């Protein structure tokens, strides 16, 4: 009987389904989505590329002066993330000493080019 009553209640209620492309899905602030790199914070320590489980992060040569803890130092490398190898585990963010590389609460888009990178 409880099944029948709930069925009839459901018949009058709005469906639970979120019709995705037209309705937006709520994304919590802690969501692990796209990888984003703040270039001026990165000191080129390579930690992110060492902890990355799918090895999506490679360090590429890039000379730049960055400020770290009040000191100015020259970095030699910067990370480059292969977007479609990334599994969005958040380990790079967890191990980054400066907070330069983070996963932001945004959906990472899809694509067909396997080699797309974020720097």
């Amino acid at each position, binding site marked *: *009987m*409880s*099944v029948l009553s*709930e*069925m009839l209640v459901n018949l009058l209620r709005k469906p*639970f389904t979120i019709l995705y492309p037209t309705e937006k899905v709520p994304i*919590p602030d*802690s*969501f*692990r989505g796209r990888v984003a790199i703040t270039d001026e914070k990165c000191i080129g320590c390579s930690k992110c590329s060492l*902890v*990355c*489980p799918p090895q999506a992060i490679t360090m590429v040569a890039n000379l730049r002066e960055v400020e770290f803890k009040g000191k100015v130092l020259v970095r030699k490398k910067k990370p480059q993330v292969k977007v479609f190898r990334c*599994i*969005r*585990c*958040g*380990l790079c963010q*967890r*191990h980054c000493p400066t907070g330069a590389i983070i*996963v932001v*609460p945004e959906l990472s888009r899809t694509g067909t080019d396997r080699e797309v990178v974020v720097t």
Partner: protein
Amino acid sequence: MTEVIIPIGPQHPALKEPVNFRVVADGEKIVRLELDLSYNHRGIEKAAEQRDFIRVLPLLERVCGICSHSHTTAFAKGIEEIMQLEIPPRAQYIRTIIAELERIHSHLLWLGVAGHEIGFNTLFMWTWRDREAVQDTLEEMSGNRVHYGMNEVGGVRCDLTPAQVRAALARLPLLEERVQKYVGMVNEEETMLLRFRGVGKMTKQEALAYGAVGPTARASGVACDARHEDPYLVYAEIPWEVVTDTHGDVYGRTCVRIGEIQESTKIVRYCLEHLPEGNIRVATPKTAPTGECLSRYEAPRGELVHFIRTNGTDKVERIDIRTPTLANWTSVAMCLTGQNIADIPVIVAAIDPCLSCTSRITVIDDREKKKNAITFDELRERSRARWHAEERS
């Protein structure tokens, strides 16, 4: 009808993953069952031996999509035991919260699948809808619906904010109310009773003899629960009970699982309310000393065992994963004999099989009768060769 052989699988609508039964049936009655496992060997143990302790956890999380937290906790627990680390209480509470939320969503998922197997799709839709509440909580806490990535050796990856705790607590009453409804449905809904009662019966002696674990064994009155027998995390200090049932059939397994959802809800509530302050992780050495560890963990499907051997480096020398499904297979084969063909899906589903997690048996050449293990590089070569072949086509 004379005896017919009905092939179930490797691809079959009742099975979400590849396994093959050859059911020998006399009319609608099953005479015999031949099991063929391991269609989906993924070489995950070998892959795990190539990665250091930081990078191995996301890999182990992907052993199973439903009990992702179970595998990482079992592994992290084992490594911490070898390293002799003391984990801060806050981290332990967070791990427990995630583990119990995972149990709730896994059991709700199972309830829906069981409904689907008997053609009761309404239950399937409703439980999966209610499971969304748990999934939303997990997503808010960890940032992902399936692979939470909460564990790391020495603690947890991220902390719970007071807002997250409040949001999670706010979702619990509705969940409890819904679960109460399912208790009513399981006991009143006529077709469910017809299809669940007396189906796939297993006595206590049989459950012990065939080595069943988890809810399958507990439904036969065997009070085995790794959380109780070998307490880990905070299970020794918080109030909770092992849920058992004496029916021994699919109905009993349903009752056990629904009872466990209720028990887990209580545990989550207790942990959220008594969340201690403090650090969420401790500093860990890069390498682990030489040692061996057998880490037991009560996954939603039953007892999960990780055997870990370390050799003083930052990688494991050997990891062996025994998933609960593997322990339950023999009991399924036993349960099915003498049952109806129509009951195959529901009896198989009653152990909540997770086949891809289970398949880790090495190459067996049937014609030349030789078995051999292959190395990780060989495995990688094979998958590469196939990948390239697909690329070309």
